[in-house]
């Protein structure tokens, strides 16, 4: 099985690589354009629609430091495709190198169920869940900035911090009235 492995390649000097997985292939393009503008670090962006990634790129692909699943909450297929792609990640990624980004979380009609489902997924995998706004340039820039913060930590470019440590701070938690068992 071609699992994507976080530690089987050597990292580059002052380089960070991020993989954006999105079924619709739209938001990832505008995010990528903003992410590569970062000057302090060389950011490589890889775009994909689903996992597994094609084998023929294995040689040339750098070590992927952060995998971001972009989910459009208005489309059911988006959620399903992201869930199906999760199988192709080595478990090592779930120690702080995976992140979920959802768009259109404000659309209440019919989406609350999906938002909860994605939140449950993020909780069970101990990953952060970011809500993003993809229609305006400001929204794209702010989402890119947040991703860059997590990316720098995940690619070990921030001293005294590791991805695992950060994930403990940023991981998603379900609101207590929904998930936690009552202690009565």
């Amino acid at each position, binding site marked *: 099985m071609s699992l994507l492995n976080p530690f089987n390649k050597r990292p580059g000097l002052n380089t960070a690589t991020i*993989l954006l997985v999105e*079924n*619709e*292939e739209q938001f990832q393009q505008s995010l*990528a*354009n903003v992410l*590569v*503008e970062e000057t302090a670090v*060389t*950011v*490589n*962006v*890889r*775009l*994909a*629609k*689903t996992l597994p*990634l*094609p084998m023929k*790129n294995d040689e040339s*692909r750098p070590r992927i430091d952060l995998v971001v699943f972009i989910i459009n909450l208005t489309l059911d*297929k988006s959620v399903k495709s992201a869930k199906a792609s999760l199988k192709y990640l080595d478990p090592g990624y779930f120690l702080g190198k995976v992140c979920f980004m959802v768009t259109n979380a404000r659309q209440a009609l019919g989406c609350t169920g999906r938002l909860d489902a994605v939140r449950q997924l993020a909780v069970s995998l101990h990953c952060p869940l970011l809500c993003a706004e993809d229609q305006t340039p400001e929204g794209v820039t702010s989402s890119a900035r947040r991703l860059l913060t997590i990316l720098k930590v995940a690619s070990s470019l921030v001293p005294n911090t590791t991805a695992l440590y950060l994930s403990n701070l940023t991981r998603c938690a379900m609101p207590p009235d929904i998930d936690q068992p009552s202690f009565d």
Partner: protein
Amino acid sequence: MDDSAKRLLQRLVRRIPTQMLRDTLDKWERLTAKQRAFVDFTQSKWTITQELLAVCEERELNVKHIAELEMIYVIGNPNQGMWHTFQLVDAEDDAHSLELVQFKEQFKTHLSELKRNVAVKIKKHTDEAVWIRIAWGDTFSRPNHLKATYVVHYLQTPFVFVSGLLSKHKPLLLQVLTLSTRHQGIKDANLSGQKLTAIRDLLMRQYQHVFPTKYPSPLAERNRSVSNLHIENEQAEASANRHRMAGEAFGNGMLPALQSAVYKLETKFRDLTNETMTERDKPLRCVVKFSSPNILESLRHCASTGIASTPVTPLLSSIPLKGRNYFVITDNAPSASSQMCQTQD
């Protein structure tokens, strides 16, 4: 001016938006410039009607002239009403050299032989289309100009577009068309829509095609721009393949704005989770209708983003390929107009 002319004029003024009314009257050329200036287009439609009636009375215009005005309006704005397409079959030897004058004579003769009291107007538009306006009457009544039928035919093509035809006049019109275009038969082409320009462009294949080639992409660029160097699409090839196949099925660039596609299913119900329905022997009759401001554009987008699987299924690709938007699907072996229906999740 008699009653029917007055009523037709009133109907027209109500129907045509004021700005277009001014342009249409200019094109009509039956009123002098002074008379056109007399009509005040900023007033209410009722006032405009009264003024126009007065002006037309001065010029002693009758219902035929008003019919001309309506025809000019419809030719300029053909995307209204419902147009149906017919296809002429079995051309005789001299069908390909049919000329406008000959066609006009034949059409008028045949029509008047078959039905009395019919008012016909034939006009050739600049883009080779022959427009025919028919007001039907019968032995006891005058032609009814309020419910005219419009026919558009491109000479030397087998296609005829009809709008506003009542079913009692249909066999008559079809017969006259067949005779005057020197063919032996005519059949329904299963293509209908509101926009005449769209169905015409679809049928005559007037949009940008993508032809399948063995080497679809040119040599890859050696020098990529700096920002692109850091962005890499992992599944670029798959994505490009999907785009190409969607383009091959539907075409590139602007597509004719077809607005609906109807599939009439007469297939057996197939769903593994539902035993009772699957056991029935008789086919389940159901009609599936797709509608959109531009159906071909939507389907092309579905195919290129992977929502519809590629290579595009013949159920969808036969819309542009065969130029029809009404299909009847049965369970028989695949043939020209019926294909196997697949279960959808």
